[in-house]
């Protein structure tokens, strides 16, 4: 560590990290949003949910921050269309930064129009998309590179990785601290916490009226202890053990995807782990790139973006890279 704390901070914030996990995060987040919204469109609900009440909308109220109150019945569907086009551009890497800005604005406006449906994961996705705008993720695995014949960037500043880790810490710690004051997760006499969550008919697939699940109450209780401990101890994400801690998080989100009806939530959260697990992921990316030679053609390792960050198992091991 440098003797000058400010210089240490500046060096740390600007240290180059491999941009490829960030590019994959950009693609997967945009795809998760697209998939979620196309699913909603397929069941015929986007036109009803994203509409003012006077034009047949579902929501009985909207936020005053919705700008298109006088826009007529076509304003919301056009906003939705704009959002989808922007997300497609983000996924493809075409005009990525403007697409993120416009897409997030449209996404937020539709959230103000239909606040009931704007969930925590939507807010998290918007936050991370905005963060992506300040990284070099738009210049990696991007169709824009091919169209504009420009070199792919290999690195981005490390602060974004740190902020993402911190965001995960805050999300999980908040969730953990919400659970701590509740008796049911510890040795409460009633139904265990995880049982109550996983048999909530509104959000889960398990049928709580089936007595067979009551036989597994001890298992649910132990799993609840693990969940709360893992969430409250999530500052581990700020250490070099982040990737190991992340393995538990991935297991939890895969479990949520299987047992609960939360749609994009699991996929959105799992996308963030592409950056957390980057040290595990990079050897796989190297191998995949070696096979897909055409991506190599897009790569310019001498593009002046700091040292190449080819996977190096010797130096591998920090939380941020």
């Amino acid at each position, binding site marked *: 560590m440098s003797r000058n704390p400010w210089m240490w901070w500046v060096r740390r914030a600007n240290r180059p990290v491999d941009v490829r996990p960030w590019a994959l995060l950009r693609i997967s987040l945009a795809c998760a949003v697209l998939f979620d919204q196309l699913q909603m469109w397929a069941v015929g609900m986007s036109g009803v949910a994203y509409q003012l009440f006077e034009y047949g909308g579902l929501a009985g109220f909207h936020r005053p921050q919705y700008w298109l109150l006088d826009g007529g019945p076509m304003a919301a569907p056009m906003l939705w269309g704009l959002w989808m086009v922007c997300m497609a551009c983000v996924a493809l890497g075409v005009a990525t930064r403007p697409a993120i800005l416009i897409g997030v604005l449209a996404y937020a406006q539709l959230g103000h129009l239909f606040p009931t449906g704007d969930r925590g994961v939507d807010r998290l996705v918007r936050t991370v998309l905005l963060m992506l705008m300040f990284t070099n993720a738009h210049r990696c695995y991007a169709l824009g590179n091919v169209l504009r014949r420009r070199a792919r960037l290999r690195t981005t500043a490390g602060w974004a990785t740190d902020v993402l880790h911190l965001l995960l810490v805050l999300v999980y710690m908040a969730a953990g601290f919400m659970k701590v004051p509740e008796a049911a997760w510890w040795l409460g006499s009633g139904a265990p916490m995880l049982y109550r969550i996983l048999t909530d008919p509104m959000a889960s697939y398990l049928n709580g009226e089936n007595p067979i699940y009551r036989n597994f109450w001890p298992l649910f209780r132990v799993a609840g202890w693990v969940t709360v401990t893992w969430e409250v101890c999530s500052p581990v994400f700020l250490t070099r053990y982040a990737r190991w801690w992340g393995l538990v998080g991935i297991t939890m989100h895969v479990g949520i995807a299987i047992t609960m*009806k939360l749609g994009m939530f699991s996929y959105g959260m799992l996308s963030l782990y592409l950056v957390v697990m980057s040290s595990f992921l990079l050897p796989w990316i190297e191998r995949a790139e070696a096979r897909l030679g055409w991506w190599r053609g897009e790569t310019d390792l001498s593009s002046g973006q700091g040292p190449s960050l080819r996977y190096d198992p010797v130096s591998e091991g920090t939380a941020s890279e």
Partner: protein
Amino acid sequence: MVGFFFLCAGTPGTRSLTPKFLKRNRKTIHAKAGVLAPVLVGLIEANFQYRVPISKHFLKVQSVFRIAQNWGLYGAGPKRMRRLQISIDGEPVYLTNDPALRWRAPQLTHRKIRPLPDTMTIKAEAFNWTGFSRWVLNEARADFPEATEVSVVAIFRDHAVNAERRIHHGRRARAPDWSWEHLGPGGVRVEAPEVEADEP
């Protein structure tokens, strides 16, 4: 700078950690968190002493992007099982999480739509009833043109082994005027309950 903005404007889980929360829950926190209580109290105090005043300056920008967050990840789970049941002429056609009653289930279980039935099963007078009940009526009359009655009710059941399902509240519309009337416990018609806000 960007990190600082996100930390102040978009910090998840801190919106509900107010002085009022601390005043109400100080004893509970000490009783439940034990040795961790001072850490918790310190974090909550730091939140409203330092972060909240700064975040107020970011409010206008934050609300444009709608990035302020509050994470519970289901807390400790609901204390009872709540379901929404839709019936046409007294015959149930939809019941939450029932594989046999799936009328409009793909729509009602989409993650963006699911919060509507969820809030309505919690509150008899949730704001969402207005638009939702209109949508249900339109869809029901399109699919069942001969129908004379449509009802939407919240069904509760405790976690106890022999607990029974019971109608907690709901609404019913009848031909020919199809105006909605309120239902109370057991599905009995009641006067409209007092309006309670379900949005902050």
